[in-house]
């Protein structure tokens, strides 16, 4: 949570006010960029230790220069090796089992104290770094500025949990002078923060206990009803909490004059699982689509006949969402959750491409409503794997049987 303490709230408030006063006084982009940089450092120091911030910054600087090279040279080896190193460091930090396995021999360097950085926000930094490298290689990022890049990586409103911005969008909003629109954004940001606060501080605390632990409902309901109710509340809770957090992040960014992308678009009115992922954690699913799903399709296409396009898509969904599950956490229940969605998307793909066109009733309102309900139920059941560990899941299934 961005405003997890009163001190951070006051720091952010001070920074936003000072930044806007300076922006009002000077139109110099460099000064503003530098101010954002110092603001990022100051606020992030309240969230992570100096050591973590220094290591992440130094690492980001290295990636910046590699990106610079990629903007001018088509070096696939440089791109692949850089991404591999980023992924290796991410895996080492997030999966203690792998870290223990690799800690002997040539990989013993991974236990070096210098690499012991805190996990907070690290996976989002990873996304931004990979995005910068790949888009530099694809020449979609043709020009980059050092301070803008550092601000992009360390931007405090989106540091902990996104939204994951693109470099070009971030650079556009930082590098342009739009006084009247910035003024509008400033006040729009206040509204967004208020909306987020109502969700996170006003509603979430009312349901969190029941949503995250079905046993709290057991005294009043039978096991089945307690689990069903708890799951329904979990769906509401996770949406309000996450989208509320995104509202606060986006609102804070607005107040600094940066229009970060949206992260949620009414996901529970989705008529299919595919649509759900276009509306839920949008920036993350876009990232998955661009940098995991599409490359996986290409890999499978290289050794499976293209005639079996459906099979390739199904396999790619399962691989992509298994990775998605692993990214969310290192325990096995996240893999189950990823597989649940991968399989669901595969079924959805078969339905929409092979079966749906054969049925006329699929255009009716009744079908649409049923689709929304079915998608919601599927997503809600999936949250069982997301919120409970393997042992808790065994307990839960025992109770149900």
């Amino acid at each position, binding site marked *: 949570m961005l405003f997890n303490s*009163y*001190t951070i709230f*006051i*720091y952010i*408030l*001070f920074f936003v006010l000072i930044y806007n006063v300076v922006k009002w006084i000077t139109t110099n982009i460099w000064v503003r960029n530098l101010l954002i940089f110092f603001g990022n450092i100051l606020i992030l120091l309240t969230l992570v230790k100096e050591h973590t911030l220094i290591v992440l910054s130094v690492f980001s600087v290295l990636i910046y220069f590699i990106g610079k090279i990629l903007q001018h040279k088509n070096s696939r080896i440089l791109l692949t090796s850089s991404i591999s190193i980023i992924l290796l460091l991410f895996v080492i930090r997030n999966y203690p089992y792998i870290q223990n396995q690799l800690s002997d021999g040539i990989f013993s360097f991974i236990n070096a104290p210098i690499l012991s950085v805190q996990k907070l926000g690290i996976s989002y930094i990873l996304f931004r770094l990979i995005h910068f490298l790949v888009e530099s290689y694809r020449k979609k990022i043709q020009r980059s500025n050092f301070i803008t890049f550092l601000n992009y990586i360390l931007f405090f409103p989106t540091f902990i949990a996104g939204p994951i911005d693109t470099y070009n969008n971030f650079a556009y909003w930082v590098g342009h002078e739009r006084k009247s629109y910035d003024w*509008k*954004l*400033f*006040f*729009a*940001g*206040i*509204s*967004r923060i*208020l*909306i987020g606060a109502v969700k996170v501080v006003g509603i979430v605390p009312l349901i969190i206990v029941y949503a995250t632990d079905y046993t709290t409902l057991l005294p009043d309901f039978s096991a089945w009803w307690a689990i069903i109710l708890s799951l329904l509340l979990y769906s509401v809770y996770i949406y309000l909490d996450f989208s509320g957090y995104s509202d606060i992040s986006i609102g804070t960014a607005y107040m600094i004059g940066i229009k970060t992308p949206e992260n949620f678009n*009414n996901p529970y*009115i989705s008529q299919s699982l595919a649509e759900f992922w276009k509306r839920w954690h949008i920036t993350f699913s876009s990232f998955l689509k661009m940098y995991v799903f599409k490359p996986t399709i290409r890999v499978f296409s290289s050794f499976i006949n293209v005639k079996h396009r459906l099979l390739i898509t199904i396999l790619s969904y399962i691989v992509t969402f298994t990775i998605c599950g692993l990214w969310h956490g290192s325990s096995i229940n996240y893999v189950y959750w990823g597989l649940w969605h991968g399989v669901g998307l595969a079924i959805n793909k078969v339905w929409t491409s092979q079966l749906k066109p054969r049925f006329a009733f699929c255009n009716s309102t009744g079908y649409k409503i049923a689709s929304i309900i079915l998608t919601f139920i599927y997503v809600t059941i999936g949250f069982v794997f997301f919120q409970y560990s393997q042992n808790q899941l065994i307990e839960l299934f025992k109770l149900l049987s």
Partner: protein
Amino acid sequence: MKLLEKIYKTSNLFKNGIFIVITLIILILLGYLIPNQKPESFKNQIYTLNGFNAKYNDEAEVSDFFHSIKKNHGYLVMGTSETVSMEEGNYHDFLNEDPDLKGIQFSVLAGAGRTCGTYIPLFLHHQEDLDSLQLIYFINPAYWRANLCEMNLKYWDRYTQYQICRTISLTESEQKQIFQPVNHYKEELTFFQKGIAYFDYLARDARRNYFCDFRNQLFPEKYAQQFQFITDTLSDYRSCPKYGQIDTELIDTVWNVLKTFQHQSWYQPMNETDTYRDMELTSFIRLCKKLGIKATFVIGPYNERFIQQYNPESLAGHQRVVQKIKQLLIDQNVNYIDATALSPVAGAFVDHQHYSSYGAYRIYQLMKQQLYEEKSH
């Protein structure tokens, strides 16, 4: 859904944002027109004071707290982490439940690192309320130890507010005599921290107008409900099977700590050169004298058995520090209870610096003896 999309449009968010800001400004300004809560002068003695009420010097609550003690001829017990609530009861709980001390009740203000200096600003803001208050201050010698012997900004920030310290006017000699610990704290704060503290104070003040004063105007019973009165807190510790007993299941009487604590390496020897704690205690004693507070100081025990097992060479340092504290109290001519005789008692501690419930029981007996004798004479 169209409604949601409409709400999220930048132009609508902008209009709503301006409305929110203007409303907030008006609400904050209107808040200052709400009459402040007045003290109610309760008949029963209040058990403790909410930490925020003390930190931000909420006039009515603090005043009612001190007055309730005085009105009932009770005592205010103050101390650090050892004096906070314990599951099996602390010495003040046993005193409160003692039928022999009928009529005398003990209120508590305590917390980890809440040493006497942190109370100075609050006391100076309530000089009239404190005249003739009976106070017991528990001195834990652990605060003369390395790592703890210096002023701790984190603790001060927890219990005091810079703005409360800043708004006290004293003569130059009073500054030197009683305000040194507070000045020390003020000097430690950076310009930026002071700015944050100032903003924090203003924000709390604006919030208090509605969440305390306005609420109490609407629901007058809410004010009294926020207090815990001693009569409501009594738990009958005396009927517990382990009352006054050493818990040998949990405590290793050789090391004289909890069995789980035995191998902890948190122990630090005494620092005999740093004078901050002496200065803090002296300033507090002078303040008590200036305000007419009837203070009794308790010199707490140290875990002698543990020290002998863990670091026997440092035992002499502990003895010298305790002797120094005793001498300071004698020099200042104040009442004190010496509880250091408990230092070598088996089962009296749970770790290197906190006494056990049995230790609390022994301290209670010691204090009762002194207080009972006082009342009998």
